[in-house]
């Protein structure tokens, strides 16, 4: 019975913080965010020195043999710093490849991705839902519109679900340089996780496993996306609350620190309570990776973490007063992250619908 971080995990987090202090201080994060691209140098370092995309994968396939909790710790720290690297998208892609791909596909794809040499991204949408917007023909040419694909400009390929002509959903890899792939470059709401709408017009895809995907396998792929985004949101929530608390201690009005006013204090406490609830739920999901309950736990994690980041980010702006609504101050970056991720893998209402279905089935 030990549901907390152990010494090694705390040490891992500490090492990550040192590394991110060097490669993801806020000035660098903002400078990279201006470009709308990922921080390739940081991603290279994370892949080569921290085995970032490989942490939870089996050693037999080139993974580091840790658990999803370690990857979640990394996701928390990346969320905390808003570092623009494609950890979560990569984890979803590698999950799909290892669960659905043929041996040859796994062999070809995994190595370069884990080495950080190849970027495979994906929308943060359940595969079956993506398939609602994308059709595949008999030759595997894909047609459909994707509202938002994170890191599209930097990606070598995009993982998508598509409706197959014979029925069912196929999970495909589409090269971004293929004919028929149009990336709509422009601004993103989430400045530190930029992406683009992508239109596919008979763009040739490679079908993982050469057949329709089992729903259970797709659930697992979606679940890892939700779980790591939940970790991202918990990390971001803690940081934006921390920034708000610091501001409330420094800023003075009416001859006292504004944090001494109950109204301001309680904005911080409300965020703190929401995080206190979300963090263990996010960890619970990561802990149950590979178990039957993983998919259901991932929905609960995403729902709870999104609530926490939304409260924390909104309240952080409020605590900062006028400063909270400047470009220069940090709160809007976390607010943008909150609003963007609220839409990931279904919004709160969709999450609650799924939670109801799961609970009613279990009852």
């Amino acid at each position: 019975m030990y549901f907390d971080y152990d010494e090694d995990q705390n040490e891992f987090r500490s090492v990550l913080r040192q590394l991110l202090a060097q490669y993801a201080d806020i000035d660098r994060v903002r400078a990279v965010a201006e470009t709308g691209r990922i921080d390739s140098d940081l991603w290279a370092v994370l892949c080569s020195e921290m085995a970032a995309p490989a942490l939870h994968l089996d050693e037999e396939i080139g993974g580091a043999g840790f658990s999803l909790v370690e990857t979640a710790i990394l996701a928390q720290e990346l969320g905390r710093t808003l570092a623009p690297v494609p950890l979560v998208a990569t984890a979803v892609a590698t999950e799909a490849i290892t669960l659905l791909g043929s041996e040859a596909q796994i062999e070809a794809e995994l190595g370069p991705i884990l080495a950080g040499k190849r970027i495979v991204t994906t929308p943060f949408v359940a595969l079956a839902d993506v398939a609602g917007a994308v059709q595949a023909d008999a030759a595997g040419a894909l047609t459909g519109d994707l509202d938002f694909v994170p890191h599209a400009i930097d990606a070598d390929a995009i993982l998508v679900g598509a409706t197959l002509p014979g029925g069912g959903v196929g999970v495909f890899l589409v090269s971004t340089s293929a004919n028929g792939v149009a990336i709509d470059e422009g601004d993103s709401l989430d400045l530190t996780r930029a992406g683009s709408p992508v239109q596919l017009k008979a763009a040739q895809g490679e079908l993982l496993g050469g057949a329709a995907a089992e729903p259970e396998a797709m659930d697992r792929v979606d679940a890892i996306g939700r779980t790591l985004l939940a970790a991202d949101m918990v990390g971001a929530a803690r940081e934006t609350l921390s920034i708000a608390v610091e501001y409330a201690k420094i800023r003075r009005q009416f001859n006292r620190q504004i944090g001494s006013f109950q109204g301001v204090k309680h904005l911080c406490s409300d965020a703190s309570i929401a995080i206190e609830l979300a963090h263990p739920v996010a960890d619970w999901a990561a802990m149950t990776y590979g178990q039957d309950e993983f998919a259901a736990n991932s929905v609960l994690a995403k729902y709870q973490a999104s609530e926490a980041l939304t409260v924390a980010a909104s309240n952080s702006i409020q605590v900062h007063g006028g400063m909270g609504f400047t470009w220069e101050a940090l709160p809007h970056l976390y607010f943008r992250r909150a609003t963007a991720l609220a839409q990931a893998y279904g919004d709160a209402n969709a999450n609650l619908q799924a939670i109801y279905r799961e609970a009613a089935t279990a009852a």
Partner: protein
Amino acid sequence: MEISYPAEAEAFRTRIRSFIESNLPEGWAGIGALDEHEQEAFVAQWRQALADNNLLAVSWPVEYGGGGLSDIEQVVLAEELTRAGLPEGTENDTLGIKLLGNTLIALGTAEQKAEFLPKILSGEHVWCQGFSEPEAGSDLAGLRLKAVQDGDEWVVNGQKTWTSSGSSANWIFAIARTDPTVVKHRGLSFLLIPMDQPGVEVRPIVNAAGYTAFNDVYFTDARTKVVNMVGGVGDGWKVANTLLGFERGIRATTDAIRFGREVGELYELAQARGVDDDPFIRRELAWCHARVHAMRARGLRMLTQLLEGTGSPVSGSYSKAIWSQFFQRYTEVATQILGPAALAPRGQGNAGLLTVAHVGTENSSKRWVDEMLYGRAATVYGGSLQIQKNIIGEAAHGLPREPRLDGGAFQDITAAK
């Protein structure tokens, strides 16, 4: 990270389950299925069964007649009793055994331990708590109950309020002001006072839900022996805080069990009322389910920290804020489900209990309306939500306190005049 309990704890769990099974009457359907008199008789008999099996004062060391159970065993016992809907003792026992008993063990004299601990266990002394006053709720240190020494006795005058189970008690532990000339929290002392005397009068308070679970206690030249002071003169605040520290105890994992059961009954209510296909009701039920899951996950984290010694006192404030707001919301959902039927509450009520209904209570409109009304009190008692948020902001995040206007001698504070 993993959540399976140690083998010894699971073995203990099996023992407890078998103890429970062999001590429940045939066809047991929960306390809620009994009428009020049967309930009282059952609780008394159940208390005896616990006492006979050394499961009553489980947090006390064995040398004082306690069960001497380890923390994880206490947790397992609490879980199994909660699951079965069985009490750990009477309501007075929570005050006598868990709070006062542990305080005497920590801070009492040898004579006080010898005199009071066995009688707490036997039930000869039935305890209630005298803390809050009409003028001292959140501002407990501003209390006014006065104690003046007269020979070998303290003479006590004033009033305590919100004393739960006061009418079934024969002893009260109270904080009184023994010195108004010093800073307010330093002029307090902790007294054990027998209630069976002319100077102590108990009057029930009818609460907004129509039940009398609480009392006012009036002291008019009431007396208690000088040896019945716990700690020295002026130690009252420290003793009271030590006592309140025992309130936290081993409850980390039981909230999810008790509230999980309630949410299950809420689903059944929705089905019975034919509204379980309403998308808005479903949304609320899903929210409830998610919240119970969060409490469960958080509970196991807190249990880990309790066992590892890495916990923080402020976690109690988070717990109170979380469960009390949850209780309010899901009981509101109950009234949504009931619709107009909530306007005429019928059937079995919630017997004046503050939170969840006893196992076996009907899924009646009166039960849920009672709970919903009690939900309004949940964010007030035991430290109001606003106080808990202050504690969270200050203790967990280091935010500065508001400027204080109540320093200096108590008798000089304007409001006290």
